[in-house]
């Protein structure tokens, strides 16, 4: 998938900006605070209709304006999509149009796959299990068709069951009342655990390849699912184990008033050469591992959706040594899709060929294309004459 052209109006610190991109690698140079991350955010927002930094659309509006507007020309295979996003600050109204026809926000999500990596992703390794569960749930929802629905149902069952446990706390236990919720918890929970285990196995295989490349074939990355259901695996046994352990923990649950077992308490370990990365790896190794997880996700996307996602790398290059930088650049060159990279440090082309990259400089909310010629990709789209939702701004 490619983004050929982008137009920003009143988005973050951009008043007005139009850009044409290279179909392979686009590099944005500039000091911090000039708008590099804002640009990646605009691309992400256009593709999935939400931000990776905030849940509030209002924060995306230029500081002295009321509305923002984004327009991008995407290409998927042989098809072209003009995507427009418009947000009105006064009414808090949001609109998306694809090729001139309005679409619902909920129908739009995951149509245009994008993977973003920013320094914050290091928290995946450094912090507690909640962030890793969120990662699994997000990837599961994007890659496995039934995952999201099961997760929603599981969360509902969990809430209902916790309420029941609170009501009955220090009271008698009524098996009849608990049985239907216990069954649902075990059946949905086991299914989620199994989907996560196989997702993690696939991700491990993909991330491993990238991690080896990045570390020069010296280190091994592994991902181990750690379930609150002891001995849970991909077999039929898991339901039984879950059921037995749920019943064994009954007394403690009634005392505490909430569910103490299930995928909502699970985690996964990130190991480098069989040592837990969180405790034993260097900062550099941790960064490489976090990036490997994301690049593994990119490859999984290619497999599952037969679509090469757009990759957004925010401020990654400055964090790696020259050797790893070269490995990362090679990975981006070899993959099929388009990449966008920001960097505050001077950019070393390291063998990038004419035509496979473009460099832009970002300064105070203005972007200038510099150096290499922009390669518009094959069959760049002719602008179709469609009704636009672009607001009429006075300049």
């Amino acid at each position, binding site marked *: 998938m490619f983004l050929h052209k982008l137009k920003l109006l009143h988005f973050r610190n951009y008043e007005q900006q139009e850009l044409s991109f290279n179909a392979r690698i686009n590099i944005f140079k500039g000091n911090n605070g000039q708008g590099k991350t804002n640009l990646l955010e605009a691309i992400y927002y256009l593709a999935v209709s939400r931000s990776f930094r905030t849940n509030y659309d209002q924060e995306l509006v230029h500081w002295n304006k009321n509305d923002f507007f984004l327009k991008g020309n995407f290409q998927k295979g042989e098809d072209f999509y003009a995507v427009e996003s418009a947000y009105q600050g006064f009414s808090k109204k949001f609109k998306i149009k694809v090729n001139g026809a309005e679409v619902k926000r909920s129908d739009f999500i995951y149509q245009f796959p994008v993977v973003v990596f920013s320094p914050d992703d290091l928290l995946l390794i450094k912090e507690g299990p909640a962030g890793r569960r969120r990662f699994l749930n997000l990837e599961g929802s994007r890659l496995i*068709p*039934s995952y999201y*629905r099961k997760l929603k*149902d599981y969360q*509902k*069952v969990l*809430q*209902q*069951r916790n*309420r*029941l446990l609170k*009501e009955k706390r220090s009271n008698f236990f009524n098996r*009849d*009342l608990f*049985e*239907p*919720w216990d*069954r*649902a918890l075990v059946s949905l929970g086991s299914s989620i655990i199994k989907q996560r285990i196989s997702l993690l196995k696939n991700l491990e295989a993909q991330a491993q390849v990238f991690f080896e490349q990045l570390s020069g074939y010296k280190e091994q990355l592994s991902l181990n699912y750690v379930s609150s259901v002891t001995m849970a695996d991909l077999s039929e046994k898991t339901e039984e184990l879950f059921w037995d352990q749920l019943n064994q923990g009954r007394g403690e649950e009634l005392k505490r008033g909430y569910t103490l077992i299930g995928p909502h308490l699970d985690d996964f370990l990130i190991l480098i050469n069989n040592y837990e990365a969180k405790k034993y790896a260097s900062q550099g190794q941790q960064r490489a591992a976090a990036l490997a997880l994301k690049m593994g996700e990119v490859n999984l996307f290619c497999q599952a959706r037969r679509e090469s996602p757009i990759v957004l790398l925010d401020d990654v290059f400055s964090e790696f040594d020259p050797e790893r930088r070269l490995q990362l650049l090679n990975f981006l060159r070899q993959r099929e899709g388009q990449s966008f990279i920001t960097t505050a440090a001077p950019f070393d082309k390291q063998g990038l060929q004419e035509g496979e990259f473009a460099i832009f400089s970002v300064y105070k909310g203005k972007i200038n294309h510099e150096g290499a010629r922009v390669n518009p990709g094959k069959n760049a789209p002719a602008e179709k004459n469609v009704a636009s939702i672009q607001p009429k701004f006075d300049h």
Partner: protein
Amino acid sequence: MSYPQTLEKLVESLCRFPGIGPKTAQRLAFFLLARPREEVVSIARAMVEAKDKLFFCSNCGCLTEIEPCALCRDSRRDRGLICVVQEPRDVLVLERTGQYHGLYHVLHGALSPLDGLGPEELRLPHLFSRIKENNVREVIIATNPNVEGDATAAFIARLVKPLGVTVTRIAFGLPVGGDLEYADDLTLSRALEGRREM
């Protein structure tokens, strides 16, 4: 410009209907004002009358104006068959098919600890005594296909089966006249679960 007070009160009242916003309420208000007085009176009377005369059958929970309801009285209906539904309107939906000739049990909800709905609130003890006292041979569970509806179905099945009664759950699946390829995953998996031998 603001409305005369009477009109404002009417619009506000109409706004309380589900799915009616201020704009539609205003349209309905002006519609009523444009109709002859007798017609408006008969609409208002219909509302009050329905409210006064209709209640839930103490036996099955259906909406009725006689006790027990017409369905419970009807001697041609199969008394060995009880269909369990969540809402009174579900009875009307099933009756429209003309395919079902047993009795009903309306729960007025589904098991939901979060909403304070337990077996007593759903009059499930009454359902179990109906089953025991009337020699019921099959209970068809038609609660909604979601987490709460499924839990309710499981709860009933577990307690009714030991009585030697057949318990069935209505199948959920593909809309008739629809194409398989347009069905979503969830609908398809439910349809697969509810498949039957041919």
